[in-house]
């Protein structure tokens, strides 16, 4: 049996919180405490500058609503958008606006490290990758072998980690290859039957293993699902017993 987690985000509890003066609402969807994936959902209040930080693991951010603005490189993201970083790859500061709503998806617990910490800057992953894109910027293509279904790449297919958005009519089976390093399958519209449970947006399944997981099956209204697949970087970093990791875990616990 391959490890998988199914989360009905729409029915998970919210908690108001603040970190470094920045207010937000948060759902802890997967804690990562069992050594498995860590998934959080944040709704930041409008803020011109969320402090620069990094996580000690690979990360997909899936912007479900609102906008994020970055000072360098990435610039402006509007939902639907993705933002990927390798472990120990800093980003920000960034602005959030427009009823921000975002999933933060890790293959393992990653903590949070403010880049105001000068010692932590020496732990930055010098080969780390950062990628961001708006879903609207890529084209839909027919999904081979699936009548009426379409898909689009949100990341270049040769990047390593992968992000694919698929849209399918009712009762379609959406099968994906094995996810050796882990994959989040997030429902964006409609509903999906996941291992016997019907899940709506923005619920998800996390799968990991050398064998392909059971295909998702779209519900009565069809569904849009984004598949966010990690590569080997997912094995790096994490909350080890080492100093920075301990601090990062404590900072994340304080924040949420």
């Amino acid at each position: 049996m391959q490890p998988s987690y199914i989360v009905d985000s729409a029915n998970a509890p919210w908690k108001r919180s603040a970190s470094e003066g920045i207010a937000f609402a948060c759902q802890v969807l997967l804690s990562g405490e069992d050594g498995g994936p860590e998934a959080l959902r944040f709704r930041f209040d409008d803020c011109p500058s969320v402090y620069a930080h990094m996580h000690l693991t690979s990360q997909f951010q899936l912007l479900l609503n609102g906008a994020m603005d970055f000072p360098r490189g990435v610039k402006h993201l509007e939902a639907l958008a993705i933002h990927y970083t390798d472990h120990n790859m800093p980003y920000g500061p960034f602005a959030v606006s427009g009823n921000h709503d975002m999933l933060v998806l890790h293959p393992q617990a990653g903590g949070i490290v403010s880049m105001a910490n000068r010692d932590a800057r020496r732990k930055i992953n010098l080969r780390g990758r950062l990628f961001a894109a708006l879903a609207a910027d890529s084209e839909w293509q027919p999904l081979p072998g699936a009548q009426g279904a379409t898909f689009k790449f949100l990341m270049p297919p040769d990047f390593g980690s992968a992000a694919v958005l698929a849209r399918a009519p009712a009762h379609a089976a959406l099968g994906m290859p094995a996810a050796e390093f882990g994959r989040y399958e997030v429902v964006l519209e409609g509903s999906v039957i996941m291992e016997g449970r019907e899940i709506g947006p923005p619920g998800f399944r996390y799968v990991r293993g050398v064998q392909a997981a059971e295909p998702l099956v779209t519900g009565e209204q069809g569904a849009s699902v984004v598949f966010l697949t990690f590569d080997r970087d997912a094995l790096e970093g994490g909350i080890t017993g080492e100093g920075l990791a301990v601090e990062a875990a404590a900072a994340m616990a304080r924040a949420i």
Partner: protein
Amino acid sequence: MTAENRESAGEFRVVVFADFVCPYSFLAVDQMDRLARDYGVKPLWRPHWLHPDTPPEGAARDRNADNAARDERRHAWFKEMAPEQYPRMRFPEKRHYSFRAFEALEFAYDQGLDFPYKTAVYELMWTEGRDIGEIETLTDAAERAGMDPAAMKHALDEHLYAERAFNAVNQARELGITNTPTIFLGKTRINGWTYDEVIESVMEQQGVRPKVALAS
């Protein structure tokens, strides 16, 4: 050749592609000046023209809600990213024309003073609020860097370095430069401004040590 020998021979190449009008490039000036002092390298400053559509007199920014929000974000970001430099930074009301400053940089290069010259131009623009599209600003920078301002004025009036500056701008395009600054530290390319500690780590990774460490 050992890293020490390489360094003492001044062969470790540092090249920065940047535009004077870019505030992130301004932040990189202090970093590169410090790198030059601490490591004995001589960073080469090359132009990457961010806004070729800007007319010589500059382009005024619209005063609207979007730009006001953008300004608020920018101030917040710089306050966080560069707390030491932010208090003395002056953000311009209009977008400046930078090509003339690129011509001036070529002139300075021929005098062997391009490195102090670029610092003077950035200082005038980003801390004193001067318009780098104006020849007087560029000749004042020349004087600060130890050059003859009259000779520079003549070179700019006659566009003696325009072709070279244009070729340099094209070189950046051909190299696929899209971020300013883009910093080449030996074999490593850094796209965009980064932390001092990252620059130090990259130097260390390539076996280049600060002069103080070499002396001890």
